[in-house]
């Protein structure tokens, strides 16, 4: 079974440009999450989809970030315009059920490593 896949794996763009990151969750997983880790800091939650609906986007840094999941399958995260502080690794994760104390955990992709210069 394929895991969570992300594209591109690495991206270097100039400040002010636009970048779109894509995530394909594990097949059958309705829950899709975006997290990011900026240099030296913890992994932070960005948002959560259930199918095509955004359940919580409280972690999105600002309106330069836009996430979509049309059709409830793959998701995209667009950064426009990119700033230097957006550099970091963006992780996508998915799960069948939301994580809870029953042990439904989430599975991460390998990340999209973004460098803004």
């Amino acid at each position, binding site marked *: 079974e394929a895991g*969570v896949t*992300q594209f591109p794996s690495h991206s270097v763009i100039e400040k002010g440009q636009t970048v779109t990151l894509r995530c394909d969750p594990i097949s059958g997983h309705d*829950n899709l*999450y975006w*997290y990011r880790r900026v240099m*030296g*800091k*913890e*992994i*932070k*939650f960005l948002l*959560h989809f259930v199918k095509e609906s955004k*359940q*919580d986007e409280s*972690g999105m840094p600002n309106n330069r970030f836009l996430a979509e999941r049309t059709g409830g399958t793959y998701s995209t995260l667009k950064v426009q315009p990119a700033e230097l502080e957006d550099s970091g690794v963006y*992780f996508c994760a998915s799960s069948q059920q*939301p*994580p*809870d*104390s*029953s*042990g439904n*955990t*989430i*599975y*991460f*992709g*390998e*990340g999209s*490593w973004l460098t803004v210069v």
Partner: protein
Amino acid sequence: GESVGLHLPTLSVQEGDNSIINCAYSNSASDYFIWYKQESGKGPQFIIDIRSNMDKRQGQRVTVLLNKTVKHLSLQIAATQPGDSAVYFCAENKGGAYKYIFGTGTRLKVLA
């Protein structure tokens, strides 16, 4: 506010020795805890989890201990191997919530 932190940013261990990675959490309402391993250039990989109604859980070469009294979580790796070198993150989750709160990570270096 809520936070999950780690006591040591880097841990160096001799190959074959046991490793202990510690984590403190502040939200007493959290009831599910997870350890992830992140190797260089890869995403976090699930290692082991534990629910708040347990004190200890064992996996293959790994053990997670939970001390709710002092809000402390630890990951023990037996007979540490070079392949265990990675950054280890603990994360907490509150039942009914869908987001994990991560610590900053501990880098484990295995010395030959």
